[in-house]
């Protein structure tokens, strides 16, 4: 029954027009970035490398697909949670608003399985969004700009990674980014269990992300103790795979914090959904 219900949920996601907003938005955004880089990329690179030109000589294709993929991911990873929440925040509350949740809940599937199937389908959708982002960023980036060593400007200095050393970093980074997006999906599904309003959980999810991001970036001591506990602090951990050496302990901490968030939020969602009086 669980797998059949998950299949149902995925069919519903696939049939909803809003599910394609994310894919469309990623296509357009990546397209815009790649177009801009194709036209003005060299000027952009010169601006970044200007401060190093007296001490370093840059040879080869600096403006390559790997750099494009990194720029695209760094730029869009902030927007992707919104695209995910747009669908996952609607999974329970949207059905409650529509009345179909009432019909589902009169079927002989337990509420726990029903919610978990929605959660799983939401995570599959999240994976599809992320994979599309990967295909667009890495695939099209390499197609248009070719490959080459990846040069990243960080606060500590310039990191240069050989082209043969890049792909595993992208793949590992995607795993962490996926975990971060699953945290967002879980948060929005949980909020979705508390209301019968379709928009509320989506807006609230974004408000929480913005609030936590502001707390995370405000460099004031009062937030020092809570900053490491916020999931938003760990959402950018995928970038750590592009450090040399890779800070394994820091990444492991991020994974643990994100997993704790997922499990806790899912627990709250299951409790609420099982106790919920379905009145819509």
């Amino acid at each position, binding site marked *: 029954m669980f797998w059949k219900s998950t299949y149902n949920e995925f069919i519903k996601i696939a*049939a909803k027009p809003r599910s394609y907003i994310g894919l469309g938005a990623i296509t357009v955004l990546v397209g815009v970035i790649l177009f801009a880089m194709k036209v003005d990329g060299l000027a952009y690179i010169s601006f970044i490398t200007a401060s190093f030109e007296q001490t370093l000589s840059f040879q080869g294709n600096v403006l390559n697909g790997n750099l494009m993929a990194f720029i695209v991911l760094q730029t869009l990873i902030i927007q992707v949670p919104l695209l995910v929440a747009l669908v996952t925040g609607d999974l329970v509350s949207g059905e409650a608003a529509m*009345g179909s949740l009432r019909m589902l*809940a009169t079927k002989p599937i337990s509420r726990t399985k029903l919610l978990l199937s929605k959660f799983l389908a939401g995570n599959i959708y999240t994976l599809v969004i992320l994979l599309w982002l990967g295909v667009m960023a890495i695939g099209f980036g390499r197609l248009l700009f070719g490959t080459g060593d990846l040069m990243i400007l960080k606060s500590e200095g310039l990191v240069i990674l050989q082209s043969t050393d890049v792909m595993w970093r992208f793949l590992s980074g995607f795993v962490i980014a996926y975990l971060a997006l699953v945290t967002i999906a879980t948060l929005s599904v949980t909020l979705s269990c508390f209301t019968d309003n379709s928009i509320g959980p989506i807006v609230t999810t974004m408000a929480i992300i913005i609030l936590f991001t502001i707390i995370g970036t405000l460099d004031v001591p009062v937030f020092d103790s809570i900053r490491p506990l916020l999931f938003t602090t760990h959402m950018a951990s995928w970038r750590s795979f592009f450090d040399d050496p890779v800070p394994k302990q820091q990444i492991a901490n991020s994974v643990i914090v994100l997993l704790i968030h997922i499990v806790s939020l899912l627990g709250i969602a299951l409790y609420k959904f099982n106790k919920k009086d379905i*009145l819509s």
Partner: protein
Amino acid sequence: MSDKIVEVKHLEKQFGKIRAVEDVSFDVYKGDVFGFLGPNGAGKSTTIRAMLSLIAPTSGTIRLFGKELRNNRGFILSKIGCIVEKPDFYQYLSAEKNLEIFARISGSSVSSSRIHELIEFVGLKGREKDKVGHFSHGMKQRLGIAQTILHDPDLIILDEPNTGLDPQGSIDIRNLILQLKNERNKTILLSSHILSEIELIANRMVIIAKGKSIIQGNVSELLNEQELIVSFEVDQPQKARQIISTNFSPETIGIIENNMLQFHIAHKDIPKINQHLLDNGIKVFGIDSKRKLEDYFLKLVSN
């Protein structure tokens, strides 16, 4: 009429300070078309929601198919098909896809041919590929009936299935319900706030008002034709009252409006009274009769 399929005892449901259901008890037996009658806001939908585990009762017990609902939810719901309030389908999916979705989690294996058979049964053949968002309310209601019987349930619960339908739509739904009863031997619980609707279909019923079950029994017995509340519109009400009181000794008699007399009397006495009044020179302008329970229910509704 021996197997008890539904047993609701002293059901109570409170939402915060509001007590939606106070004390509802009734039984439904195998093969019944059971009328669940009450005015709007009486607690019918809340009771039905509790029977389907959509809401948790504050107190009281609900047993279906001889088992406690709380501990046997999956088993019980696999034997029930229902429409609560109105069938809310996925507007962006076709009728067929909607039925497939509900069939997958119905607890039984439902074949594609079964889905098409039911689409034909409810008169939607040829529209199965259309999105439900393009359906009229009546068509959605018929699709709702198909959804309730997808998995061949033993008990069908229909909550106000005629709400929002035009007269022809109501007749169509009524005929479908009768077909379910007569051709497919289903036990049906049908809620309504319209007495005549229940009277046309149900063999047993319960009346609930203000969250309490008032009376339950056989429809034919409860709506006894022999005991009526009769109103006579006459030109001399005082004289007519005296004549009727002397010759027929009705249970009660009163003048309810200027020229209107009302009293309880047996159905067979109406022509005799009419003749008696005419013989005594009293003009009769109109006669109206209501069954006791009908009168009681109309007062409940009007209140």
